[in-house]
């Protein structure tokens, strides 16, 4: 069958794993041979690996980094007439299509959820990560939403150390903030741009014995650990489920269409997302 | 009386045959000297005795029964105690802990150390050597080199529960000791001998060996040459056995008469403990510097080289020189440091690189070194100092001590120098190499080079110097002609103030 290479710098992140797995599952049905390559955060290595698989002569390449960062690799693929499909990547003329969730929308949903839950007033802690473009856009939207409520005060905008996945350092940071704001009610909510900091914040709040102050936590991605926490009915109230499986299988289907010679009109394909609360967490 | 014997011992390292049928027999109640040129295999034989190296062939017997010395513990079990050649200390640990490096610590059980017992045992051993001024709690790094050596010697005399020592093997124990300290060691050795203990002793100081030992074993090129009673052997015989050549007189005669122009003028120099240094060195002159340990001899040469901060003036051929080693080399001072491995050689680089280093400015054009010039220079100098090496690219670590020293002499000659500064130039160097070095020094003075030489080897100092300066507590108390001085007189001068 066709040889397809999936190249990502971010495989150890939970979301990525899910859509890569869904991609592989669909690819198996299609009879493809898939090679998943993780460059562990190194974007230049993504270019190198694209060059390698182009030399090897694969039939298609799937990426999940911003295309503008790997122009040289995309040029190499284009020169060899090998189609490239983005999986949660970004839009670019050189990729046939990018299959993704709408990050702006997800951030809007959770930040508005918080604003409504706290009645548009109180202190909010934000966990963001601007070094990673897809997560950076979420912070932009949340900033805008909170700014729109004059009585919401952003207490701190924290970038946790993510070398460990983000839970432990977020927890330590949250513990310090809780200590710095000992008055009950001084922290109304925690908005996290993805789930790990939300989980860390939850652990910190529970460990400090402040779970009954009504601090509202939201995350994004709705990974299983987050779903468990939301289902438990504690402070972690909401997250947004990206349809990772859908992204993965849609990316495979898109690749199949491209390989079949179809010319796609829209170069971004959005897979719908869903707000997850204790109602639908399980 | 216990008796330990080695026969036909062979040991090779790569292509070097360090031992090639060496042997030795050691009896209780004797002081036995082991002699040989640099690289003859003395230390290797001792390391085999200590269980640190396995021989390729050969037998070892104890009281007639064969024994296998497969580990340091096995050697300790036979009652053997060692002082190895290199000054091996752990500077960061206390004297007591250093003394117990080779012995089990006293414990409460479970390996938990009993510090009081550790100190007591150390103190007892020090006292046995007649050393009372060293506190076992002191850090080793805080002792001077002499005291460090005394501590290590005392460490061989520690009582341990396991086995009582009966033989002490000392590889060049006096290399870092002053006369008085050595005397103390000799007294202790005599006591041990009287108690029926055996002492195996390596030294390059011929007079010491002749005065101390009961028997002398000589190795040459890894082979046993002879074992003779002290009273059957003469100094010349030992030298003949060691080197296979004959040195009628060790110190070549001074060739030219001194009294040329002043080369080096030192005016009111102060540096560290040094005060009011004033002297002049003339062309073709050898100025010896004598003094006790810590009197500042080493510091004086380093101050002249600009390697330590100094005040006052140093003039070479009437020109003041800047305060850095680079300025000193550029002005024609050449330095042979005391610790050749630590201060002189790039041990793991081609020996030519070490030789060329201070002369790079003259061996390069427009910032690029001229390989061919270096090759030619090193070839010439190697011949001049009779260096034995496979090639210029050989690393210094593979050379014997004497040849390492010759590398540094070659480097000092390259300039050519105006003034040569020598710090213990023949320490740990064998008779043959010593003779070559003396001849080199004489050759230089004949060409008008001036020499300042620090040495603890008093016969050497008297034999080579034209004048000798006495250094006491950082002051040059007097400078007198070497002619007619005896060792005893010189030593007395060094001690003078303390005696008064």
């Amino acid at each position, binding site marked *: 069958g066709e040889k397809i290479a999936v190249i990502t710098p971010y495989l150890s992140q939970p979301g990525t794993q899910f859509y890569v797995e869904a991609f592989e599952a669909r690819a198996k049905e299609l009879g493809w041979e898939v090679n998943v390559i993780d460059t562990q955060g190194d974007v230049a290595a993504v270019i190198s690996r694209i060059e390698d698989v182009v030399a090897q002569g694969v039939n298609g390449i799937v990426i999940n980094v911003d295309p503008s960062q790997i122009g040289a690799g995309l040029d190499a693929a284009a020169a060899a007439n090998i189609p490239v499909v983005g999986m949660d990547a970004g839009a670019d003329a050189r990729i046939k299509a990018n299959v993704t969730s709408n990050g702006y929308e997800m951030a809007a949903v959770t930040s508005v959820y918080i604003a409504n839950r706290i009645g548009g007033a109180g202190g909010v802690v934000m966990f963001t990560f601007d070094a990673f473009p897809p997560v950076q856009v979420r912070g932009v939207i949340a900033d805008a939403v909170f700014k729109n409520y004059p009585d919401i005060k952003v207490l701190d905008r924290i970038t946790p150390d993510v070398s460990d996945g983000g839970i432990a350092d977020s927890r*330590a940071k949250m513990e310090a903030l809780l*200590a710095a704001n000992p008055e009950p009610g001084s922290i109304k909510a925690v908005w996290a741009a993805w789930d790990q900091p939300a989980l860390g914040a939850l652990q910190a709040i529970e460990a400090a014995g402040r779970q009954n102050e009504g601090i509202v936590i939201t995350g994004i991605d709705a990974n299983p*650990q987050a779903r468990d926490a939301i289902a438990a009915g504690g402070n972690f109230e909401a997250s947004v489920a990206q349809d990772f499986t859908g992204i993965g299988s849609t990316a495979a289907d898109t690749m199949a269409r491209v390989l079949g010679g179809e010319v796609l009109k829209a170069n971004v394909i959005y897979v719908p997302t869903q707000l997850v609360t204790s109602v639908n967490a399980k | 009386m216990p008796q330990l014997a080695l026969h036909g011992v062979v040991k090779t390292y790569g292509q070097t045959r360090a031992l090639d049928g060496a042997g030795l027999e050691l009896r209780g109640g004797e002081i036995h000297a082991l002699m040989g040129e640099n690289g003859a295999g003395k230390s290797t034989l001792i390391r085999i005795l200590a269980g640190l190296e396995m021989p390729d062939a050969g037998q070892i017997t104890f009281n007639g029964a064969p024994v296998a010395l497969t580990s340091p513990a096995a050697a300790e079990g036979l009652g053997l105690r060692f002082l190895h050649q290199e000054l091996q200390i752990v500077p960061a640990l206390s004297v007591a802990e250093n003394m117990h490096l080779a012995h089990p610590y006293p414990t409460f059980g479970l390996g938990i150390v009993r510090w009081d017992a550790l100190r007591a045992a150390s103190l007892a051993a020090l006292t046995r050597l007649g050393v009372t001024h060293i506190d076992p709690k002191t850090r080793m790094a805080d002792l001077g080199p002499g005291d460090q050596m005394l501590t290590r010697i005392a460490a061989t005399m520690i009582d341990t529960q396991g086995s009582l020592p009966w033989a002490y093997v000392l590889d060049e124990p006096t290399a870092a000791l002053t006369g008085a300290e050595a005397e103390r060691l000799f007294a202790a050795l005599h006591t041990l001998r009287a108690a029926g203990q055996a002492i195996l002793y390596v030294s390059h100081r011929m007079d010491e060996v002749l005065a101390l030992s009961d028997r002398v074993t000589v190795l040459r090129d890894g082979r046993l040459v002879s074992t003779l009673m002290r009273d059957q052997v003469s100094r010349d015989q030992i030298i003949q056995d060691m080197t296979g050549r004959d040195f009628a007189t060790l110190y070549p005669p001074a060739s030219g008469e001194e009294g040329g122009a002043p080369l080096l003028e030192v005016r009111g120099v102060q540096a560290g403990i040094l005060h009011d240094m004033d002297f002049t060195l003339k062309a073709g002159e050898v100025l010896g510097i004598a003094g006790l340990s810590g009197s500042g001899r080493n510091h004086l040469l380093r101050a002249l080289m600009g390697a330590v901060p100094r005040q006052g003036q140093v003039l070479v051929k009437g020109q003041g020189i800047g305060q850095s080693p680079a300025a000193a080399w550029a002005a024609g001072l050449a330095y042979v440091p005391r610790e050749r491995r630590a201060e002189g050689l790039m041990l793991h680089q081609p020996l030519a690189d070490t030789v060329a280093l201070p002369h790079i400015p003259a061996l390069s054009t427009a910032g690029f070194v001229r390989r061919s010039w270096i090759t030619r220079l090193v070839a010439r100098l190697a011949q001049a100092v009779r260096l034995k090496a496979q090639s210029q690219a050989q690393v210094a670590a593979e050379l014997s001590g004497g040849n390492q020293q010759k590398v540094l002499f070659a480097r000092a000659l390259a300039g050519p120098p105006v003034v040569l500064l020598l710090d213990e130039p023949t320490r740990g160097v064998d008779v043959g190499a010593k003779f070559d070095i003396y001849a080199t020094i004489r050759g230089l003075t004949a060409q008008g080079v001036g020499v300042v030489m620090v040495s603890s080897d008093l016969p050497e100092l008297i034999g080579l110097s034209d004048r000798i300066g006495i250094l006491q507590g950082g002051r040059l108390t007097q400078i007198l002609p070497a002619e007619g001085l005896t060792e005893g007189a010189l030593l007395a001068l060094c001690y003078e103030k303390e005696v008064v």
Partner: protein
Amino acid sequence: MVRFLRHYGTLMGMVAIVLVFWALLPDTFMTARNWLNITQQVSMLTVAAVAMTVVMVVGDFDLSVGSMASLSGIVAAVLFTLGWPVPLAVGAALVVGLAGGLVNGVLVSVIGILPFVATLATLTMYSGAAFILSGGKTIFGRDIPQSFADFAKSGLPLGSLGDKPVILPWLTVLALAITGVVFVVLELSTYGRRLYAIGGNAEAARLAGVRVTWLRLTAYGFTGVGAAVAGLMYASRVASANPTQGEGLMLNAIAAVFLGMTVTRHGQPRVVASVLGVLVLGIMDNGLTQLQVDSYVREVLVGLIILLAVSISALGRRATGRR
């Protein structure tokens, strides 16, 4: 004065940092709860730094502690998913730590590879192994037994303060216990003194008959086990295991030991000093976060503090003569 600065400079710096935070955060910093938090936050780093101290005593390094910590967490978690009981899985993870440490030991001590190179290579390999075992995934949720996750959440009740109970977290207790054991081993036992001798002058120790090769090898074994313990503590604290989660430990552990070395008399690595180093890092993190200092500025500040401490100590050592 100089001598005084050298010995007490870092200590005084620490006290100053604490005082500054106390002044700026009068209500929240100097509280029992905050300090218990700090001790718990630094407990994993403490164990890693204490373990690192052992190899640094013999004058070596171990760059692989971070990936070994990740690997041990993954091993335990994978075994949990296979249904192993907690004690067995934890035991297996510790055995992996010991084995990994001994591999480092063999490479450095028996084969003679520079510690930096050997443990750099094993860093890559252990991290690769963690990725392979976990398939690159984070293992969490129902796969992690409750009792394992609870360990990090509970502790020794110490009484109560006001209305809230004060609890000494088990993680802190464990870190203290391990520090104590390593202290006794390094400072009071013959074994430890031999390690210091090797670190001070390996050649002298060898000539004196100390079994340098063997002892050096075992030191790496200690460090490997310590790294594994730190990794398990981490996994328990985050109730999950991820093939990269230990990564941050390595550089921080080394930094803590070096920071500690600036307080010891002769600049030697010592257990208690390493723990002090860990505390400095932990207090800075806690205090600066409470003061809402930007995370990036915090990073620069931490670097500066380390440099300051080490510079004072280096300059002091220079001025008082020997190094």
